[in-house]
C-alpha cells in the first residue's frame, strides 16, 4: 500500500478526536499483546483490524483498517526503516565517514535505529498486526542529493531525518496514549532521536536545539522539517517574553502531523 495513503488517516481529524474523546472513558489501560485491547475501543474501530500490508498488490481501494495506535506505530516503523538503512549504507560506504570519532557516533546512532526497527516490529506483532514492509529508499531523491558520496550531504540529511523523527513521534503521542506501554516506549524512543538530533546538529556546527524555524545551513528541500518550529506561544504563554524569540522557540520542539511526517519520508521512498 502507498505509505502516504495509509498515513493520510493520521491527519484525519475524525480519528484523532475519536481517539481523544474516548480518553475520558478509558479506565482500563491495556498492555502489549493483549488483543482484547483493540476490541475494547469504542466507536467500532476495534472490529477493524489491520490486515497484512502487501506493498506490491494493495490498491488504494483496499479495505485496510487500523486504529490510530497501529497507524502511529507503522509510521514510526517507516521512519526507523529509513534511518536504519541510511546509516547502514553510510557506514558501509568506503571513504564516506572517514573520521574514526564520527564513525563511533554514527555506529551508536545506527545501533539504536536497528534496535528501534526490531522493537517496533515486535510491538506491532504483539498487537496482532503485521508490520509494514520496508519501503525501497532512494536517498538521492532522484539525483538531487548525493549523501553516500559527499559527507557534508550525508550529515545534512542525517540532521533532517533526526529532527523529523523527533517531531513525528511527538505528533503521534495522542494516538498512542491509549496504550500506556506503547506510549512509554514511544517516549523512550522519541528522546533518543532527540539526542541523535542534538549530536548531528552540533557536528554540523549548529546548536543542538532548533531556534526559530531555522534548520541551520539546510537546503530548501528540508524546509518542511522545520516549518512551524518558530512558534513562541505555548498554551497561551508567550515564551519569547523573557529572552527573545530564539530562546522561546528553542525551548519547545513542535509536532509534525502524521501526513506531514509521511510526506517528508515519502520524498525518500521510491
Amino acid at each position, binding site marked *: 500500500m502507498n505509505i502516504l495513503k495509509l498515513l493520510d488517516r493520521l491527519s484525519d481529524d475524525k480519528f484523532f478526536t475519536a481517539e481523544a474523546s474516548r480518553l*475520558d472513558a478509558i479506565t482500563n489501560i491495556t498492555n502489549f499483546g493483549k488483543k482484547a485491547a483493540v476490541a475494547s475501543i469504542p466507536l467500532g474501530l476495534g472490529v477493524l483490524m489491520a490486515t497484512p500490508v502487501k506493498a506490491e498488490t494493495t490498491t488504494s481501494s483496499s479495505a485496510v483498517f487500523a486504529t490510530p495506535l497501529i497507524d502511529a506505530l507503522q509510521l514510526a516503523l517507516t521512519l526507523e526503516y529509513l534511518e536504519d538503512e541510511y546509516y547502514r549504507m553510510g557506514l558501509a560506504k568506503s571513504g564516506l565517514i572517514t573520521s574514526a570519532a564520527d564513525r563511533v557516533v554514527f555506529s551508536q546512532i545506527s545501533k539504536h535505529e536497528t534496535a528501534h526497527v526490531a522493537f517496533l516490529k515486535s510491538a506491532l506483532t504483539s498487537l496482532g498486526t503485521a508490520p509494514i514492509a520496508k519501503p525501497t529508499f532512494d536517498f538521492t531523491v532522484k539525483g538531487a542529493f548525493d549523501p553516500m558520496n559527499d559527507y557534508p550531504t550525508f550529515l545534512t540529511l542525517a540532521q533532517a531525518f533526526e529532527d523529523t523523527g523527533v517531531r513525528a513521534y511527538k505528533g503521534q503521542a495522542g494516538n498512542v*496514549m491509549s496504550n500506556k506501554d506503547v506510549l*512509554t516506549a514511544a517516549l*523512550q524512543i*522519541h*528522546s533518543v532521536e532527540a*539526542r541523535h538530533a542534538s549530536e548531528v546538529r552540533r557536528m554540523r556546527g549548529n546548536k*543542538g*536545539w532548533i531556534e526559530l524555524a531555522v534548520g541551520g545551513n539546510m537546503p530548501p528541500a528540508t524546509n518542511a522539517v522545520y516549518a512551524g518550529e518558530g512558534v513562541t506561544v505555548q498554551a497561551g504563554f508567550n515564551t519569547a517574553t523573557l529572552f527573545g524569540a530564539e530562546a522561546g522557540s528553542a*525551548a519547545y520542539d513542535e509536532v509534525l502531523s502524521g501526513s506531514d511526517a509521511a510526506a517528508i519520508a515519502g520524498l525518500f521512498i521510491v
Partner: protein
Amino acid sequence: MISRAGFFNLFETELKNNIMKKTISVSNGAATLDTNRRNFLKLSGVGLALAGLTLVGCNDDDFTMIDNGNVFDLGTGDVGVLNYAYALEQLEADFYTKVVNNFYSGISAEEKQIFTDLYHHEVIHRDFFKAAIGGAAPNSILPTLEFQYPGVNFSDRNSVLATAKALEDTGVAAYNGAGKYITNPDYLVLAGKIVSVEARHAAAIRDLISPRTAAFSGDDVINAMGLDLAKEPKDIVAAAGSFFKTPFTWKERGI
C-alpha cells in the same frame, strides 16, 4: 504568586473530586488538527491538603510553605503531574541560574553559550508551568521551592558538567516515566514538546564531557532495545531528592 488573602482562603478549600471548570487556551502550533474543539485544558481530581501551614517570609514575589506537620502535596491526576514537572523545572532553572551568574573558571565561549541557552530554556519551562498551573488550578500550584547543591562546586567545570548531565538525564527519565499518568492529550503534547529539548540538552552536555564519542546517547542511558530511560516519579524524587531543600509529597504516586 498568591495574595495574603488568597492564601488564607486555602484553609477554606474543601477536598473535592469535581472537575475544575477553569480553563486556559491551548495553541497546537503546527498541528494540522482542528484545535477548536480541543482548546481547553481540563483538570480533574484536584485535591489539596494544606491544613495548619505557617506562612513564612512572605514578600512581594512569593512565599514558601514551611513544614508545620504538613507538607505540600503535588496533587492528583494531571495537576499532580504538572506540579511534578514544575518542581523539576524549578530545580533546573535554579541550577543554571547559579551557573550563569558565576561561570566556572576556564569556561569556553561555546560552553558559555550552551549554559546560557540551557538557563534560558529551563527558566522558560519553569515560568510556563507556573503560568499554566497558576491559571488553571491556582489553589493547587506548587509553591516556589528552595534548593541545595551538596558536593557541587560551581567554580569547577567537571562538577558543573556532571551535575548538568545528571539533571538533564533525570529530566528526560522523569518526563518519559510520567507520560503515562497524563490523561489530557494537550498536556501530553506539551510535555512531549519539552522532553525532547531536555534530551537535546542532555546530549550536548554529554558531548561536552566526552566529545565526539557515543556518550551523547550512551549505553548508560539507552538500552539494548534503543530505549532511553523512563523512571517512576518515586525513583526520580529519590534520586534527585538531595537537591530539594523544600520537602513535598505526592501521595498519589507514593511519594
